């Protein structure tokens, strides 16, 4: 399940809801990865744009992959502004097996960083500044380069 929220994520509510949804489903391991906005380089926070159609298909293909290993993925992400010291991102794996779960959360979060169509901006003096230096070109980038 993929959910998008306006602004900061309510981490306690989301993880508690997920935990209560899955605890009786005999999975064994629940591994959330929670991203928290760091106060650095004088930013007030981050802001995000998301292209939902491709995010959804990217997530669905990972869900299929997880399903083949008996696992399930959950994800929440913020749209718009997220202040320092609040959360913009939670990914979680539920798995019957510890090792599968630990491998999946690693691979899923790494591929999320490389492939999810989400654009990050630093919030500086009330303005959005594209975090170009920290961003990664998608696989296939440069197709129309002249």
């Amino acid at each position, binding site marked *: 399940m993929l959910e998008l929220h306006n602004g900061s994520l309510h981490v306690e509510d989301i993880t508690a809801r997920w935990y209560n949804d899955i605890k009786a489903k005999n999975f064994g391991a629940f591994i959330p990865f929670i991203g928290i906005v760091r106060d650095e380089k004088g930013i007030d926070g981050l802001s995000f744009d998301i*292209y939902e159609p*491709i995010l959804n298909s990217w997530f669905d293909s990972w869900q299929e992959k997880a399903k083949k290993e008996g696992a399930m993925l959950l994800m929440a992400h913020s749209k718009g502004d997220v202040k320092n010291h609040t959360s913009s991102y939670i990914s979680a794996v539920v798995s019957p097996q510890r090792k599968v779960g630990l491998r999946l959360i690693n691979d899923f979060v790494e591929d999320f960083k490389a492939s999810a169509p989400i654009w990050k901006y630093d919030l500086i003096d009330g303005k959005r500044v594209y975090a170009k230096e920290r961003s*990664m070109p998608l*696989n296939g980038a440069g*197709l129309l*380069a002249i």
Partner: protein
Amino acid sequence: MAKIEFLGPIGKPPVEVDIKNLDELKEIFSKDDDIKEWLKICAVAVNDTITKTLDMKINPNDKISLLPPVCGG
């Protein structure tokens, strides 16, 4: 006419173009100095699937999206 969307930080309103494949789109963009720098680093999706081939046929009503470098999380 195919619709071109410039996603995220590109900050350019959508345009409509009359093209038969992506090679023709590249030709059109070659005259647009605003977009040249972005083209080097953007991936291209046709109807929400990222494509890696320029000879892809484009139909009227197709949606073409330019996706700049990403940084979720």
